[in-house]
């Protein structure tokens, strides 16, 4: 199928006029017609005629020097401001909100010639790991529609998995790109904090939020990041660090990663980890070993504190970030928040209030310093860390929502990365006997995206998990 091709292959086909952008866009809408009713991955689908018109214009204006994403259809998590297209963040609060401005990442993709197909369902405000905490109906996992796709960028992962677009832009605050990537068998990157501008991305927890690519392969993610990364004068926390040519650096990846060391923190493979997932990650590590990489067992004694740090700082920041939704300038009033969002706001408000600030918020910010030191130490003993993305396979719809605490525990392997800021690449690493996808994270030093891509790309050259799509 056309949309199974990589972005590079698509671009080559477009350049050779084997097919047109219009063909690609039509294919997206065919898939949407079939898969949207099953998955509920979209919140807003761009009017088909509008998208086709844009595709035709792109086809007509195409030049031999068209950039890599030119004429390629994509989707955005519904947390990005898109001028003239509603942005709901999956909340009734913003059900009718039409942004009068564009998020930087969206602007860059438009300038690169990519074509927006729609805005994807998610956990409202990023509050969740299952894409059930949404006012637009839960998203279903295309591998098993009784199950959740993960979250919060669940619509993006489900959408890419069933090829309703060539790629997606997600947002990761505590695992929101990696978690659904793993459960939907897509590839996703949580970038180094500051690598991609957050301007126009509805804030969940500002010091954790990252905007990143979600796609069918590492190679695709490299191309997407190349087009979207870079300093932005509208985001004071965006990094004034040059953007490498991630795709070019994939060439010769296998020779480059040889003799690089993988660190495996033993605490992450203990109790609570599904044995099938454990086996899958271990087998994947063997694949990497086969590529000439060294493996080192390491210890991460702080691991257990990752969740408390995350679930103190993120709610604190979200209680502040969501204070603007008062229904005066836009949107509905605060009675429109879901109970999950209200709980997070209340936990954060509590942690920041006088008398509790020191024991909760300040304490967590100190613990965060320790986590940064911990990761620094670990990543001085190896080049990258490898760990599972999720402790379990995708749960059934409704399971996580029943227990707010269980909901938190599902993020145990992803949350401690964001307070530190380092990048983490989630790649498909196998399937359970029941045929459910499993994901592995490769975690690197700040701004080490290139190395993560090289390892991930080499891994995907040796394996075919990422090429498998759910049966339709």
């Amino acid at each position, binding site marked *: 199928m056309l949309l199974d091709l990589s972005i590079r292959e698509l671009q080559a086909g477009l350049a050779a006029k084997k097919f047109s952008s219009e063909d690609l866009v039509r294919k997206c809408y065919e898939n949407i017609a079939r898969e949207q009713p099953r998955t509920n991955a979209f919140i807003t689908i761009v009017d088909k005629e509008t998208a086709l018109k844009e595709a035709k214009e792109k086809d007509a204006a195409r030049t031999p020097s068209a950039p890599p994403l030119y004429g390629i259809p994509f989707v955005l998590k519904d947390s990005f401001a898109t001028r003239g297209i509603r*942005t709901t963040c999956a909340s009734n609060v913003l059900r009718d909100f039409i942004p009068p401005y564009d998020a930087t990442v969206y602007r860059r993709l438009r300038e690169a010639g990519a074509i927006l197909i729609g805005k994807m369902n998610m956990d409202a405000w990023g509050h969740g790991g299952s894409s059930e905490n949404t006012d637009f109906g839960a998203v279903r996992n295309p591998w098993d529609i009784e199950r959740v796709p993960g979250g919060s960028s669940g619509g993006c992962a489900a959408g890419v998995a069933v090829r309703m677009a060539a790629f997606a832009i997600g947002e990761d605050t505590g695992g929101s790109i990696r978690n659904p990537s793993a459960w939907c068998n897509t590839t996703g990157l949580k970038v180094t904090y500051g690598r991609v501008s957050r301007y*126009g991305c509805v804030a969940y927890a500002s010091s954790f939020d990252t905007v990143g690519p979600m796609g069918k392969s590492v190679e695709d993610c490299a191309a997407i990041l190349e087009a979207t990364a870079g300093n932005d004068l509208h985001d004071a926390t965006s990094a004034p660090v040059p953007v490498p040519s991630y795709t070019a650096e994939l060439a010769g990846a296998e020779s480059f990663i040889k003799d690089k060391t993988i660190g495996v923190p033993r605490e992450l493979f203990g109790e609570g980890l599904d044995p099938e997932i454990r086996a899958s990650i271990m087998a994947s590590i063997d694949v990497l070993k086969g590529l000439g990489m060294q493996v080192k067992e390491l210890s991460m004694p702080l691991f257990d504190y990752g969740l408390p740090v995350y679930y103190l700082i993120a709610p604190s920041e979200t209680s502040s970030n969501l204070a603007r939704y008062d229904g005066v300038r836009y949107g509905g009033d605060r009675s429109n928040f879901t109970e999950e969002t209200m709980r997070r706001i209340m936990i954060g408000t509590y942690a920041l209030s006088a008398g509790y600030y020191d024991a909760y918020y300040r304490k967590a910010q100190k613990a965060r310093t320790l986590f940064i030191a911990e990761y620094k130490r670990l990543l001085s003993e190896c080049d990258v860390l490898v760990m599972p993305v999720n402790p379990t396979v995708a749960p059934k719809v409704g399971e996580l929502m029943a227990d707010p605490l269980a909901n938190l525990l599902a993020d145990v392997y992803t949350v401690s990365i964001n307070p530190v800021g380092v990048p983490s690449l989630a790649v498909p690493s196998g399937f359970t006997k029941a045929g459910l996808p499993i994901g592995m994270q490769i975690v690197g030093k700040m701004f080490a995206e290139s190395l993560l891509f090289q390892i991930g790309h080499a891994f995907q050259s040796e394996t075919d998990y990422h090429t498998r799509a759910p049966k339709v």
Partner: protein
Amino acid sequence: MTEQFPTPVIGMEIHVELKTKSKMFCGCKNDPFGADAPNTHTCPVCLGLPGALPVPNRKAVEWTIRLALALNCSISMESKFDRKHYSYPDLPKGYQISQYDQPIGHDGYLEIGEGEKRSKIRIRRVHLEEDTGKLSHKEIDGENVSLIDFNRSSVPLVEIVTEPDMRSAEEAKEFGKKLHRIVRYSDVSDADMEKGSMRLEANVSVSEHTEITEDNLPPYKVELKNINSFRFMALAADYEIKRQREARARGEKIPQETRGWGEAKKATRLQRVKEDAQEYRYFPDPDLPPMRFKEEMVASIKKSLPPMPDTYAAQFVAAGASYESADILTDDMATAQLVAEALPLVSDGKIFINWFLRNRDTNAALSAADLAKRFADEKGSKVTDEAVIIEWVKTVVDENQNVVAEFKAGKESVLMFLVGKVQKLAAGKADAQVVMRLLRSQIDQYTRSSVAR
């Protein structure tokens, strides 16, 4: 009653809008007063739209340092922005970006009054924040509503907080005026009270102690807010002092509250009772990297500051001006600068200053050189030509032989009498120094010549 609570304790909080071209955290035009229509100087950032992010205005930060230095503050070399949370319709994000524990300036002071009444008002902090939108109130179809205009939202705003060091309404007024002057000298704000680009708040209480220390501050304070002139501020503070003295003398507990000034009734009136201690949930704004200032940068800002009113006033007083005259001359910097530049060019500073003040309106438009010349022309330039003066001197010596004799006998003081006689002949235009020198030599010569005779 006054005896029971003799000491007013007043601290002030002053907000000053900086006159940068653009707003504090976005590129919108900073000119809420000049906007054509409401909500036209707005963008995603100052409207608090989902996803918008703040980026601080470099000039606003530099100007806050400048103002803090003008107020004799120490600068926090490491500083940052914090979020201050409260909910109000004119506050678009539900929090105000402000500064909590690392204000740009701290521990400064400002001196007011003269002589024995001279006192130092300590400044606790000078910090930078963003202004809110502006509310107005209206009745639409029988319903009372508030209208919001966000043109003012995120205009850079400096907050200056004093220690409770003022002991009378008069001092509070004087402090306000002095601060206003320093803000204007620093050239960072229009500081227009009418337009609200400078806003005063006073915290007033009365104490039973005569000496106020950190440890015996009154257990309450009443906040006087929304007062747009120094005069009303003084009236309101005076009223409050009297009201509180009477209430406390009756044994009443004065609640922590906010009051405004009602000009019609010449009385303060309750605006809001503060029930709970405010719970602002400050934390460092994760959208804004911290600031670290370099010594050289602060030094160069300090160097760029013009002399402050006190410096000019001291110069004028040294030249013979009264405190009142010096005060008037330093009201605006252009005048102070002009007079200071002209002073070395004129022969008598004191006469010059008095003359300047009598003709202030016409004088203010001149350059220092032109001013000195005009002064000389009008007051008559001093006759310094010795050939002319010696004739007057000879006449006076001839006609005042008795006095000359007294002088020769050692009575130095009579010399001034003779000088006066010469000036009478010269219509006051003779150079006093030349007159004295010629008188001495003439008396000397006269004596010798008379002996020879």
